[in-house]
C-alpha cells in the first residue's frame, strides 16, 4: 500500500477532525450528564458563601472568644506560644488596625480598640490563588477559597500575596501544640500554609460554620450571598456594611456591619 503525500495530509486532516468532533461531543455530553447527576444541588441557583459580622452585637461582650475556641477545636488549630509561629484561622484585631481608613483624628472615639473578628475573606478574586504555583489553593464554584495541604510546597507566596494577613504557615510541627486533637479533622504538618476554610467540611454535611454556631450573640451571619433572600443579603440591604480594603478589587465575602 502506497500513500501519497496528498493522501497522508487528507487522512491526517480527517482524523484530527474526527478526534475534535468526538472531544466536542464528549464535552457536550459531559456537561449534560453532570447537570443531571447533581439533582441535590440547585444548578439554577448559584452559590457564593459569605458572612456578615455584626460588630454592634459582637462588641457586647469584648472578652468573648467563643467563635475562636470553636474553630480552633474543630480544626485542630495549634496554640503556639511564640507569636512569630502563630497559626490563626479566626482571630481578633483592634478596630483601627482592621479599618485604618475609618480612623481619623476626630472619628476614632466610638470604635477605637474594640476587637474585630477576622478570618479569610474568601475573595471573589483572591490574590493568593493567582500566585500559588501549584494550585494548592484555589477558588471553588461556591466561592470558598480552599487549601489542598497535600499539594502545598510551602513557598509562602500566598502569604506575601494576601492583603489581609489571613494565612498562617506551620513553622514547626503543630501537633504538640494541640491540646485535644479532633480525630475527624486532619492536623497539618510542618511546612504547609493554612487558613480558614469556611468550614467546608461542615457545609458538606449541611451544617453551618463552627464559629457561626458558637456565637452567643448571633453576631456572625452565614449564608449564600448570591441569593437575594438569604439572611446576610437581607442584613446588607438594611444596614451599612464595609468590607476590608475593597479598593484592592479582591471582593471579600466577609462584610462588617459597623
Amino acid at each position, binding site marked *: 500500500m502506497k500513500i501519497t503525500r496528498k493522501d497522508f495530509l487528507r487522512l491526517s486532516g480527517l482524523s484530527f477532525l474526527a478526534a475534535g468532533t468526538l472531544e466536542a461531543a464528549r464535552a457536550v455530553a459531559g456537561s449534560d450528564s453532570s447537570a443531571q447527576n447533581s439533582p441535590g444541588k440547585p444548578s439554577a441557583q448559584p452559590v457564593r458563601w459569605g458572612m456578615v459580622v455584626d460588630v454592634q452585637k459582637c462588641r457586647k461582650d469584648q472578652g468573648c472568644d467563643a467563635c475562636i475556641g470553636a474553630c480552633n477545636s474543630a480544626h485542630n488549630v495549634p496554640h503556639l506560644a511564640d507569636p512569630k509561629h502563630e497559626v490563626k484561622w479566626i482571630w481578633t484585631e483592634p478596630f483601627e488596625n482592621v479599618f485604618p481608613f475609618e480612623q481619623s483624628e476626630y472619628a476614632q472615639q466610638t470604635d477605637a480598640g474594640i476587637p474585630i473578628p477576622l478570618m479569610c475573606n474568601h475573595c471573589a478574586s483572591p490574590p493568593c490563588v493567582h500566585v500559588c504555583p501549584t494550585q494548592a489553593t484555589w477558588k471553588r464554584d461556591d466561592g470558598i477559597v480552599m487549601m489542598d495541604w497535600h499539594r502545598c510546597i510551602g513557598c509562602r507566596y500566598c502569604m506575601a500575596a494576601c492583603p489581609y494577613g489571613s494565612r498562617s504557615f506551620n513553622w514547626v510541627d503543630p501537633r504538640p501544640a494541640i491540646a485535644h486533637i479532633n*480525630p475527624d479533622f486532619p*492536623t497539618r504538618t510542618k511546612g504547609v500554609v493554612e487558613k480558614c476554610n469556611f468550614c467546608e467540611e461542615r457545609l458538606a454535611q449541611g451544617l453551618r460554620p463552627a464559629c457561626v454556631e458558637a456565637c452567643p450573640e448571633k453576631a456572625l451571619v452565614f449564608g449564600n450571598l448570591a441569593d437575594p433572600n438569604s439572611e446576610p443579603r437581607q442584613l446588607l440591604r438594611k444596614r451599612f456594611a464595609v468590607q476590608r480594603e475593597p479598593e484592592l478589587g479582591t471582593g471579600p465575602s466577609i462584610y462588617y456591619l459597623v
Partner: protein
Amino acid sequence: MRDRIWIIAGLALFAVVVTAPFWSERTPAKDLTKVPNLVLPVNQKDCVAPVSYMRASHMVLLLRWREEAVRQGQRRYVAFDGKVYDKSLTKTCLGCHNKEQFCDRCHTYAGVSGPYCWNCHNQPQTNVAGISPRSMP
C-alpha cells in the same frame, strides 16, 4: 605503582560501604517467609474494593479519593458491590482498620517508609474496641 595502596584501600572501602546493609547491625536479617501479623476488622467483612485490588493498589484509590474529596468536593464513593462510602481515610478506612496493627505492620514488612499520611490524619478513637487479633492466611 606508588598509588597501588590507595587504589586497594579505595576499593576495599567501596566494598565495605556497598555490602554494609548485609552485615550491618542496624538491618537485622529478616525471615521473608513470615507474613506480617495483621489484625483484620471483625465487625466488617467487605471492603471498598476486592481484597486483591486493595492489597496491590490501595494507594492509587486513596490518591484518587483525596483528589476527588478535597479538590472536587465529591465525597460519596459507590463501591463495586453498590455500597456507598464516604471518601475518607479517617472515617472510612480507619473506621474498620487499625493503623498500628494493619497499615503500619504491612508497611514495615514491605519496607514502605513512604506514606506520611499520619503526619496529619488521625486515628479515630472509636475503632480500637471490638477487634480481636486474627492472622491473615
